[in-house]
């Protein structure tokens, strides 16, 4: 028996979307309000007057667009690196048995327990010795290293979900391992790769602490570092420009997601294995 009628389902969906979308809606609303309205007791979503100067200030202050470009480069590069390394490694972790796998899983879990403040100083010293401190390549490597364990963990779950019988069937038909991987495993793994790429991109795009400590030159600052400058000393916050900057900062993520959304299809394996 169906518990919910269709209208009730739609109502629930709309409520859920409102719940998810409200913070973004509030952010957009704050980005077009005057300082006076932001600091009044008025709590309307729609501003009394639309003030676009917050966007002008956000764009002109501290080189927000240049920082966004830096963030984009680092996020795309670290996403590409993470995925390139994680895909084969995840396959190995998911399919192999023995000490290597145990060690790999152990490394993934252990790497997640170190607080970043504990590793930041040695990391900085190593990067400086390599000539990679205070540049985007160094930050990309750090982001990749930091995201890789989780990306591996995610992807090996996806690999494990692909029935090994499919690979065996391919082998029975005369395909070698590479052919099996290319024609059977990778297509089925695509949604997992996309999900992992999305996670990696957003993690890198939003990452603050490493960028804060590792980047010393303003021309290398990423977006979170520049947005941080809207928060001042003595508790001062330029709320309107900060909201405008945050809205602008969300755009690339939304674009990236909308491009990859279509790839996030599942059900490719439906009926692949007949019982």
């Amino acid at each position, binding site marked *: 028996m169906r518990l919910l009628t269709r209208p009730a389902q739609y109502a629930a969906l709309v409520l859920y979307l409102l719940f998810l979308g409200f913070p973004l809606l509030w952010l957009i609303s704050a980005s077009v309000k005057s300082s006076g309205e932001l600091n*009044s007791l008025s709590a309307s979503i729609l501003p009394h007057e639309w003030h676009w100067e917050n966007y002008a200030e956000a764009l002109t202050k501290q080189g927000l667009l240049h920082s966004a470009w830096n963030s984009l480069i680092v996020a795309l590069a670290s996403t590409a690196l993470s995925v390139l390394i994680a895909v084969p490694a995840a396959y190995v972790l998911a399919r192999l048995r023995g000490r290597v796998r145990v060690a790999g899983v152990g490394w993934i879990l252990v790497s997640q327990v170190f607080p970043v403040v504990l590793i930041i100083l040695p990391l900085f010293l190593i990067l400086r010795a390599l000539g990679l401190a205070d540049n985007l390549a160094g930050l990309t490597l750090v982001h990749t290293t930091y995201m890789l364990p989780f990306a591996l963990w995610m992807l090996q779950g996806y690999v494990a979900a692909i029935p090994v019988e499919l690979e065996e069937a391919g082998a029975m038909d005369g395909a070698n391992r590479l052919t099996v991987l290319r024609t059977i495993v990778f297509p089925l793994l695509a949604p997992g790769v996309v999900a992992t790429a999305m996670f990696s991109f957003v993690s890198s795009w939003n990452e603050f602490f490493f960028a804060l400590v590792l980047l010393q030159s303003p021309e290398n600052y990423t977006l979170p570092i520049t947005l941080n400058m809207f928060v001042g000393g003595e508790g001062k916050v330029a709320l309107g420009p900060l909201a405008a900057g945050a809205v602008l900062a969300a755009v690339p993520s939304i674009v990236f997601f909308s491009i990859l959304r279509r790839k996030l299809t599942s059900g490719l394996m439906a009926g692949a294995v007949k019982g």
Partner: protein
Amino acid sequence: MKTRRAVVAACLLVTSLLLAACGGGSGDSGGPVTLTFQSLSDQPAAIAQTQKIVGDWNKAHPDVQVKIVPAGWDGVYDKLVTQFNAGSAPDIVHYEAAGIAPFATDGYLADLTPYLSPEKRADIPKGVLDSVTVDGKVIAYPTELQSYVVFANKTQLQQAGVAIPAGATMTWDQLRQIAKATTKDGKYGLGWGLSSPTAAFVALAPGFGGKYFQGTGDNATLSVGPGEMGLPQLVDAMAHQDNSILPVTLTQSGTKALAPFYAGQTAMTVQGSYQAVNIEKDAPKGFDWIVLPPLAGPAGPDQAANPQTLSVNKDSGHVKEAAQFVDFFTSTENLAAMNEADALIPPTTSARQALTTKLGSKNGWGTILASGQYLTSAPYLFAGKYAQWKDTVATPAYQRFLARQVDANGLKSQLEDGWKSVTK
């Protein structure tokens, strides 16, 4: 096919990025000395003023060029820790007295005592100079200060028949009486954003004879007596006996507590002095506001000074030049302009007078600048684990006290026991 192209593109992107890393790098190459100045200025006017001062310096000193490196306040402590430990700190460091003291204790900052002229030393009030003095050495020049002041809705005070205090100072008892008198018709006398109460309680404690700490660094000890409990108990009495503090403000930040002030829900609000500029900008048209005289407790009107500072990295290859720049930055003219831009109080007497002459009583400036004379050093600036104690012990303990979950004795023991556990 598409997948292959995507992989190739990704590889190219990564490779080009790594190759790009091989370029770059900067350093002195026998030309003019270049000093890096990590500036935390965040207000547009203050950023422009900082650039102007640096521009003036660079024009007058072609052999010693200063390069501004902007940074944000949030997370700057972690950044400085890494920079100093890794030997990559800027030559000139902008921060605040409470934050910079541990770096001085650890030996990262140059002793600026030899560069401080007798005239400038005499121009900085002793209490403010003490706040930037560690182990007898001046480790920073103070640049900007804030005090806690009371902003009042003049109309509401007059409607309540309250005589507006006009003396050089105003007692806390007067504030309490005015708050009581203006609490009526669903409106409250006072709004005070105390979501993070420790900073305010510690800064205002000297007026009650409160010191909190004795000793410095890791040897600092904490004792909470009548002087330290005076203000929290007064706030508790106003909030829960007089019912003259708008309850919600006790859970809000200072800035959030301005909204009910603008709306006429509270007749007064205790704020950092810099809020004068925001009130002028954000208050509704026709909102008639004033700044009441500086608050004085039983021990006087003193407040703890935690000035913004400029220090010099001890490992800089050009300590002397950096110190000369800091001295230039803190000239009377520059300090007056910087503090006007940031809506803060200059730490030198001459700059405060210059600003008073220029601005008069406009937007409460006269009273705010006058409050600067009562700013003095406080032991908490030099207590090694103060920041950790403040965040993990004191703030939650004060919040529990203001919510009446613990009494005064409970608060006292939580603060003292918390300090012991933090400094174990």
